[in-house]
Structure formats: C-alpha cells, structure tokens
C-alpha cells in the first residue's frame, strides 16, 4: 500500500480493469452483506421503516456511521438531536476526507465531472483495494469504479433480509459479524508492511487513537490517530536511497 516514489501513470478508463476491480473487493462482499443484514435488524428494532432504511443505505452510505447513529437514535428528532447525529456521523466519516485526498494524485488528471462522482463511492474496502492496485502501478480508474459500484449495490440490498429476519438476528455478535471490518483491516495491514521504519506512523496513529479513545467520548479517535500518523510521516526525514531489502509483491 505504501507507494514508492516512482512517477505513476495518470488515470484512464478501460474495460480491462472492471473485473479485476470486482475480484479485488470480492473478500469484502460476504462481510458487507453480513454487516448490512445486522444493520437492517438493528433498524427494525429501532422502528425505522424498510423504506427509510433503504433511503439511508443509498444516501449516507457509510456502514459504521449508520450503525453508530442508529444505535443512538433518539425517540424524538429535535433539531438538537439531529445536530448530534450529524456530528456523530462527521466524526466517524471524516476519514473519507483523508481517503479522497489520497486519490487526487491518481484521479487528478480526470475531468471533474468524472472524478467527483467517483469520490462519492469512497469506502474503507473499496479505497484500500484501489490503493493497493495503485501501489502496484495500476492506473485504470475502472478498477476503483467497478469495485465501488458492486460494493454500493451489495450494501444497498443487504439490509432488506436483515430487516425482515430481525427476530433471528438480534445478536449479530454470535456470528462474529462485528469482526468483519477489523479482520479485513488486519488483512490489509499485512501486505502494507514495508519494514519497521515505514511502520513508525502506524505506531503513532495507534497510540494517539488509543489515548483519544480513552480521553474523549465519541469517535474522534479515528481522525486524530490517522492525522497524527500522517503528520509524523511528514516530519520524518526522507529515507536514505538504497536498494529495497524486500520488494513487496
């Protein structure tokens, strides 16, 4: 995931990368389905209608933020309660800001009308898969878009069976559904390993995230940790040019 400093090709569109892009997000699909079903079940318990749930799936399109918001869904939606939900959503989803920032060097040569709508499909899984593809020299924007569209529609429909089967899904933890995202993250971290020096920002990120999680209520720890990691990487000196000890695959 850690891109080298060789210049990479500008973005282009071709049909060739659509299927590889879908295959790359394939491991996400069962987990996304399970996560969406658990979310649908939660919504049923909170007395949202199925139509409302589907509107939320289609528009907010941020699994973790939706979960967090609906878990703390108020009985009465006062303006203050809506503002609280908005702030909660922002603290969970502000990481998308950082993700779309990393896509600029790749997508920046595309016309705005192609690039900005593409950014609406930024998710953890789709973005991580696209970053890994880019890291290996890929430039075909269809890779990102193909996977992103499949993830979007999988998520869109995943809540329906969960909503209808809510009674059976009252404890999604029983099936390990809460491990879907952490396990996928962990799997993505392994190939990103490029030696201890490149992992220093990760340690900074982890320490700051744990501290903020402990000290500050809510979900600020994600953005605080991620920004600290990136800033620490910026403050570190450029590594000595040398032959890479282990070229990653």
């Amino acid at each position: 995931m850690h891109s080298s400093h060789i210049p990479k090709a500008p973005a282009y569109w071709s049909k060739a990368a659509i299927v590889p892009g879908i295959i790359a997000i394939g491991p996400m699909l069962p987990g996304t389905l399970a996560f969406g079903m658990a979310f649908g079940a939660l919504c049923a318990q909170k007395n949202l209608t199925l139509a409302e749930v589907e509107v939320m799936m289609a528009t907010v399109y941020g699994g973790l933020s939706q979960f967090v918001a609906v878990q703390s869904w108020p009985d009465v939606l006062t303006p203050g309660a809506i503002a609280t939900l908005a702030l909660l959503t922002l603290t969970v989803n502000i990481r998308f800001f950082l993700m779309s920032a990393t896509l600029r060097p790749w997508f920046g040569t595309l016309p705005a009308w192609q690039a900005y709508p593409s950014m609406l499909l930024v998710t953890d899984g789709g973005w991580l898969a696209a970053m890994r593809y880019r890291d290996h020299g890929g430039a075909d924007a269809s890779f990102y878009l193909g996977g992103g569209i499949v993830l979007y529609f999988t998520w869109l429909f995943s809540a329906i069976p969960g909503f209808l089967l809510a009674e059976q899904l009252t404890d999604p933890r029983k099936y390990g559904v809460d491990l879907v995202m952490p396990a996928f993250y962990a799997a993505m971290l392994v190939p990103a390993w490029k030696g201890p020096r490149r992992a220093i920002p990760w340690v900074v990120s982890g320490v700051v995230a744990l501290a903020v999680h402990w000290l500050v209520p809510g979900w600020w720890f994600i953005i605080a940790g991620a920004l600290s990691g990136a800033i620490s990487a910026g403050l570190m000196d450029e590594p000595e040019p040398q032959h890479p000890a282990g070229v990653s695959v």
Partner: protein
Amino acid sequence: MTEFLRSDVMIAFAVMTAVTVASRLGGYWLMGYVNVTPRVRRMLDALPGSIIVAAALPVAVNGGPVVVFAILAAMAVTIIRRNDFIAVITGMAVAAAARALGFGG
C-alpha cells in the same frame, strides 16, 4: 409506523448525508490546491496504514480478548495465505466459536 417515510427522519438522513458527502469530496477538492512535495507524498503514503490502525486498534482493545484474538488469527492467516477472503472468514469464525464456547467479549 403509519408513515412510509417520516419527514423528520428524512431531514436527519439529509443532514447525515451532507456531512458524509462533504467528507468524501472535500479531501479530493483540497488536494487540488496542495503541491504534492515529497513531504506531502510521505504523508499521503502513510495514511492507509494509519487509518487502519486508528480505526481498528481502539475497537479491538475495547472488544476484549475474543476480538483481539480473532484479529490476530486473521492477520496470521493473511501472513500465511495472503487471502483477504479467508482472513475475514477466519476472524468471524474464531470470534463466533469463542463466543459459542462461552468466552465473553
């Protein structure tokens, strides 16, 4: 549930969508005004790993031993097999099995 789409719920979703869309577009937009120097390049390169760790580590620590163990199992499988799919299934299966056996968390 007399109403199909309640207007107050729709307003809440609209506000949540607005902040999420702003997040998704904002980073890309801002980087149009940032010169990608080697320093900025290093910061961008460090982001994937940093976001992963920041999002997952507190959740893992908070989740207790079962979650930590399941994540470690997923990483071990990834090191051996380099297969994301098997890693996710392993993480879920280990947690589900541990909880079925009566381990909390």
